[in-house]
């Protein structure tokens, strides 16, 4: 994106306050309630600088939660958690590499985040309404309502949600709900120096991502594909679409992503039917068992 014409309205280093609709200047998107927002994370542009992780923790006042050398390349964060809402993973593929391709090669780096699923299993599992869908079509936990039941944790097919050891409640990425309300793009996207993380309206992002895949194919990166856009891996099993989706160049498992995630609710109907059938069977059996002696008694 070039320089936005509105940037010229602010000709001094000193600003009187927050720039209205700042996201229009920084990413070309005006944030309005009722529209659908998300992330397109293009791993081929990621340099693994972890600015997203730091910006996220700084903006959201999240504590450090893992102070140890993992031995897994430069990934010492290891996973998304209650206190880590962006996680840059590193996979070394230098051994046996046969050459370089345009953009990221032989050392995969990918900034993972909550997918803000279109059909969000965590939200569906939440019995209290603490998890809700915002006016920006993102999924947010309200800790003042959350009772810490933890149903959302196993229901997330990506292992994103976690209960905090500090307050026992569920925590995860909010897609910077507070920033969106103030007209600012999320902290991680704003801090990304190479625009590997793009924030915007989901439909726009999907369109741009599709073009990017085509362009990469033309330039010889034939492995490039989308994960989480409609009708792609990741958008399976009733999830339909991930508002935060990815461009990958290796199998999902290499990035620690499920190849075909599913929505637990999909299993609800068969589960319920199976349960009901079992109940019915048990009832019949019980009836048979309890009725038989009576008959005998009779």
């Amino acid at each position, binding site marked *: 994106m070039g320089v936005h014409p509105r940037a010229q309205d602010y000709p001094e280093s000193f600003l009187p306050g927050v720039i209205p609709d700042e996201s229009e200047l920084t990413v070309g998107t005006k944030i309005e309630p009722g529209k659908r927002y998300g992330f397109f994370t293009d791993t081929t542009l990621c340099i*693994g*600088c972890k600015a997203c992780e730091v910006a996220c923790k700084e903006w959201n006042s999240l504590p*450090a939660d893992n102070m140890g050398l993992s031995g897994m390349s430069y990934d010492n964060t290891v996973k998304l958690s209650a206190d880590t809402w962006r996680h840059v993973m590193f996979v070394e593929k230098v051994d046996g590499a046969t050459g370089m391709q345009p953009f990221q090669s032989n050392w995969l780096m990918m900034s993972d985040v909550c997918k803000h699923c279109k059909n969000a299993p965590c939200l569906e599992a939440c019995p209290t309404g603490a998890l809700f869908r915002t006016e920006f079509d993102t999924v947010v936990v309200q800790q003042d309502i959350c009772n810490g039941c933890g149903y959302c944790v196993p229901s997330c097919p990506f292992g994103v949600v976690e209960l905090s050891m500090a307050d026992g409640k569920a925590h995860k990425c909010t897609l910077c709900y507070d920033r969106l309300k103030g007209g600012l793009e999320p902290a991680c996207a704003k801090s990304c120096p190479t625009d590997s993380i793009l924030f915007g309206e989901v439909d726009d992002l999907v369109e741009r991502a599709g073009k990017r895949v085509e362009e990469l194919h033309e330039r010889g990166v034939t492995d490039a594909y989308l994960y989480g856009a409609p009708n792609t891996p990741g958008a399976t099993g009733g999830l339909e679409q991930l508002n935060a989706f990815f461009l990958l160049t290796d199998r999902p498992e290499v990035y620690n992503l499920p190849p075909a995630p599913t929505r637990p609710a999909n299993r609800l109907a068969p589960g319920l039917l199976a349960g009901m059938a079992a109940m019915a069977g048990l009832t019949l059996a019980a009836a048979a068992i309890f009725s038989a002696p009576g008959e005998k008694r009779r």
Partner: protein
Amino acid sequence: MPQWDLANSDVILVMGSNMAENHPIAFRFVMQAKERGATVIHADPRFTRTSALCDIYAPVRAGSDIAFLGGIIRYILEKDLWFKEYALHYTNIATIIDERYQGPDELDGLFSGWDEEGKRYTYESWQYEGMTVPSSLAEHYIDTTESFNDETKRLSEGPPPQDMTLQHPNCVYQIMRRHYAGYTPEMVEKVTGCPAETFLKICEALTKNSGPDRTGAICYAVGWTHHSTGVQMIRAAAIIQALLGNVGRPGGGILALRGHTSIQGSTDIPTLYDMLPGYLPQPHAFKPHETFKDFLEMEQTPTGWWANFPKYAVSLLRAWYGDAATPENDWGFDWLPKIIGDHSQLPMTVAMRDGVIRGLFLMGQNPVVGSSNSHMVQRGLANLEWLVVRDFAETESATFWYQGHQVRNGEVRPEDIKTEVFLMPASLAGEKAGTFTNTHRLIQWHDRVVDGPGDSRSELWFVHHLAKRLKALYAESDRPQDEPLKNLTWDYSEDDVMGEPSADDVLKEINGYTWPERKQVGDYQDLKDDGSTACGCWIYSGVYPAEAHNQSRSRCPDGPDGPGTHLGWAFAWPSNRRTLVNRASADPDGKPWSERKKLMWWNAEKGHWDGHDKPDFPRTKSPDFKPDWDSQPQGMDAIGGADPYIMIADGKASLFVPSGLKDGPLPTHYEPVEAPIRNPMYKVQGNPTAKRWEHWDNPLHDPGSPDYPYALTTYRLTEHHSGGTPTRSVPTTAELQPEGFAEISYELAEELGIKNLDWVVLTTARGEIETRALLTHRLRPFHYDGRIIHQIGLPWHFGWKGYATGDIANVLTALIGDPNTSMHENKALTCNLRRGRLGKGH
């Protein structure tokens, strides 16, 4: 070149830099260039995050860079792929060199003029035939003699001797062809370990993407400067770029990536011992600098822009000494301290240890972690009378006296250390106002947005009040040695109840004003040598050109259809020029080389230079201007209209450097002082002029020593900042790289029985450290002469303070210096490695 101009490059070579990791924001523009189809190349001993984003990765053994770059120079010359119109006119390729000159190709590694006893060169045989050429001002060195000055005056008598047919055996072209004849692709492969095939692919990419219609850039950082041949590595890059016509043009140039937000500013208004602000030389006690007149005569370059040097020197003295500076007292020249030798960091460390230096201020610096030979640094600190540490957390350098190595190993007890340590809390950037000067000379203002916690104060506050108190202490003194302090102007206003001095006032003084009216000057061309102007740093003139106009505050980018030079965004010195030498973006006749690479052009109708940038050339000097040699022209009158390099005495890029470099006029491959092998190219092993401080606590390893068989390279990580204080003491960055480690190849690990995350001990003659092993295929062994040479990589951020801790890598490093800059050689050393841990008290 501006960082954003990298987006206009057609090829980018990143070498001597891990750009994506250590300059991620600047790397944004590399990615933009890639999007537009540029080829990006990374040559480095390690496969890093930068390598992962490149089109071509070339593994090179640490310290073999000149062999690699020399190979590129040979390729360009032998295949005749240089940009002839550019290089023939804009460089000294056709200039004829003294007939006594001999190169390393004839003298097996040495240049003519070698003085074996003094371990130094004399420069007579490196000069242009029949004339002595001084280097640009700040590069004058003590080795120059009095007669040198008289000789340089001959530059005004006529143009340097040239053979435009390039047939003369001693023209620079022929000398370079002979010099680099041995740097064949096979030799490059042998010396650097980079496969010849990869090397040739890089040569093709560079040459294919240079010329009238295309440009390339080279980005380097401390991966080049931290060598005993660091200056010559950069010189080799400069030769490549000058030959390919990649200087002064959009998307062309050499980007010296700076390691800190304002490290460019700290050389412009220097923390360096041998320069005054604006690259003026510091007076030297052993040079003929007795009077101001001597100083000016000695240091003034007769031809080129530097002939204006007296204006800048007088204006500086006026700024510093105000009305006390008069023509009668040489503008207070005698009050400037004179240097007597090399007072840079490495010899300063020795001087502390030997009790020569008795007090030290550390402002935002943590030398126990960040300086070579940490044990010697700690001994030095322990031998001071007083030490002031200004930082925002207690650093290793502030705690050496109770937690340091010598205390832990019983060499010294805290109660026996006499150093009085003062720890003063420092404000961070957002807690104070001022400017940063970034990599491309862009001076950007930042406001104070929040007060610092507790008693923390800005550097400005500290220095301001220290100066005021010192001046008060000496106010009544009548001793002559106290005159400099008494006469120093110090009238900055104070902004608030805390007495914070006005950074605005300081920037106004740096910009300069008339004297005594104090009316801001608009540009350095307004400065005078008669005392009627005062200026703190001539190159910054124009940053504050009027009373209410601080240009460094300006934030006006070009719109979507603008030229993209963003002249309204802050201020780039000098005179807001974004690209230096931009006269070279036009051909000798003043026309752009091509429409695609258009930047500046001569407007014949209006009689001045036009373009998207401010011209880095006299605005009205016509391309066909020829110096009138009969009139013995001085200064810019001796520079022709087609000579873009106005800071050089002959207006041409120096492929061959006649003076200013201590280790030779052309880059030559020498092995690092500590190398795992003998020099495959010459009998001379290492840089013969390299500085070595061989003391009992700074022993150096012999080349190929079996006791230290592995190559060791030290480096930084994205997650930490230099000495680590700003990041290791902040949880959100500390957790990202929470502990020290050494990167070891699987091949070496297998040989030594080391598993991932095992404890290992690294040893040099300076000391030993323990750390964790991080096994990786990104570091690979090199094969040389049937031998395997293993490389070990060691990040150097860690220390004992903060959340992220680890042993100090600089315990292993040595005091070895580049002869020109005294910069250490921590990028290429040797060491030993074993599995295990150190005992207590290490």
